[in-house]
C-alpha cells in the first residue's frame, strides 16, 4: 500500500528535480548581476565597470573643458592588450567614446588613427576632398589622444584561482605630449570555478 503511494510520487519528483538543474536560454540584462562570471577571462560586466568608472573620473577631472575651442577633440591611440586572451579593445574604448560624446565634453575623430589609418576611410576621403575644394583646412586636429593598456595578473592557491585585470588609460595633450589625466581601474575575481551571477 505504502509503495503504491510513495513510488508514483518519487517517480514524478525525479524528473522535476532533474529539470531544476538546468536553465532554459533566456535574456538577461547585459552586465547585470545574473551575468556569467569567469576568472580567466574579462567578462562584459568588467568592461562596463571599467569604462564607467574611468569615464566618471575623466569627466569629473574637468580636463576636457581645458581646451580653447570646446568641445575637445579626442583621437584613440593604442590600447595594448597584455592579457593572455584575445581582446577587442573597442569593448572598452567605445563605451568611453559614447559616454564622453553624450556628456557633450568631447568628440572623437574617426578620420585620424594610429599609423595614419582612419576608422572611417570614406569620411577621411570626403574630408580631404572638402579641404581641397575649399582650399582651407577645415579639419580640426585632436586636442587629446587616449592610450592605454589592459594587464592580467593571475595567481593560484590550491584550487582557488584569482585574476586581477588592470585597465589603464592615459589622456595626452596633443600639443604638449603630456599626460593630463590618467585612470586605472582594477578588477579582481577569485574562485574555484565559473559561476552565474555575482
Amino acid at each position: 500500500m505504502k509503495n503504491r503511494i510513495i513510488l508514483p510520487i518519487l517517480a514524478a519528483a525525479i524528473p522535476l528535480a532533474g529539470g531544476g538543474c538546468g536553465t532554459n536560454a533566456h535574456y538577461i540584462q547585459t552586465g547585470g548581476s545574473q551575468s556569467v562570471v569567469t576568472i580567466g577571462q574579462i567578462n562584459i560586466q568588467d568592461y562596463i565597470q571599467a569604462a564607467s568608472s574611468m569615464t566618471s573620473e575623466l569627466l569629473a577631472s574637468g580636463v576636457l573643458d581645458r581646451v580653447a575651442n570646446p568641445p575637445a577633440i579626442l583621437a584613440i591611440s593604442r590600447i595594448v592588450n597584455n592579457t593572455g586572451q584575445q581582446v577587442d579593445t573597442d569593448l572598452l574604448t567605445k563605451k568611453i567614446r559614447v559616454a564622453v560624446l553624450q556628456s557633450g565634453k568631447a568628440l572623437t575623430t574617426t578620420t585620424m588613427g594610429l599609423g595614419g589609418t582612419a576608422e572611417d576611410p570614406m569620411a577621411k576621403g570626403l574630408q580631404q576632398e572638402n579641404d581641397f575644394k575649399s582650399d582651407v583646412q577645415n579639419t580640426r586636429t585632436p586636442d587629446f589622444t587616449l592610450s592605454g593598456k589592459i594587464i592580467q595578473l593571475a595567481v593560484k592557491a590550491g584550487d582557488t584561482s584569482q585574476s586581477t585585470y588592470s585597465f589603464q588609460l592615459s589622456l595626452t595633450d596633443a600639443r604638449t605630449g603630456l599626460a593630463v589625466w590618467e585612470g586605472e581601474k582594477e578588477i579582481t575575481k577569485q574562485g574555484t570555478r565559473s559561476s552565474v551571477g555575482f
Partner: protein
Amino acid sequence: MKTGIFLTLAGALLLAVSGCSNSMNSVENAQKSGQRQMIADQRAVTDTGLAGKVSVVGVNSAMTSGGFLKVQIELLNTTRSLQRFSYHFEWFEANGMQLTTLTPAEIPDEIQGGEDKFISSVAPTPACKDFRVKFIEN
C-alpha cells in the same frame, strides 16, 4: 566522557564562528575641514535582510568643476561579518526622464564587518539632476 566531547565540539564551533567574524576598526581626524552637503533621501526597502545588514547612513552631493552632479553614499555594515552586494546608479534629467542610452554598470562590492564606507558616482551628463541607487545582495 560525553560532556568532554560536547565541550570540544562547542569549542570548535566557537572557533569556527569567531573565524568568520571579520570586523573592522578605523581612526580618522576628529576636527573635519571639509563639510559634506547632506541631502534628504527617500528610501524604498524590499530586501529588509540586506537593509538590516548594510544600511545607508547618508547621502551627500556636490557639483564637479565641469558641472556634473557627483553623489556619494555612506554605507555601514551593521554586522560583524563581510557582506557582498552590488549596486548601480540611475540618472535622471531635469524633466524626470531616465538616461537609458548607456549600459548601467552593476558594481559588485563588499564591506567588512562594522565597516563604514563610501560609494560614489558622477552623472554622465551635466543635464542629469536626479539619481537613484539600487542595491542587491550577492
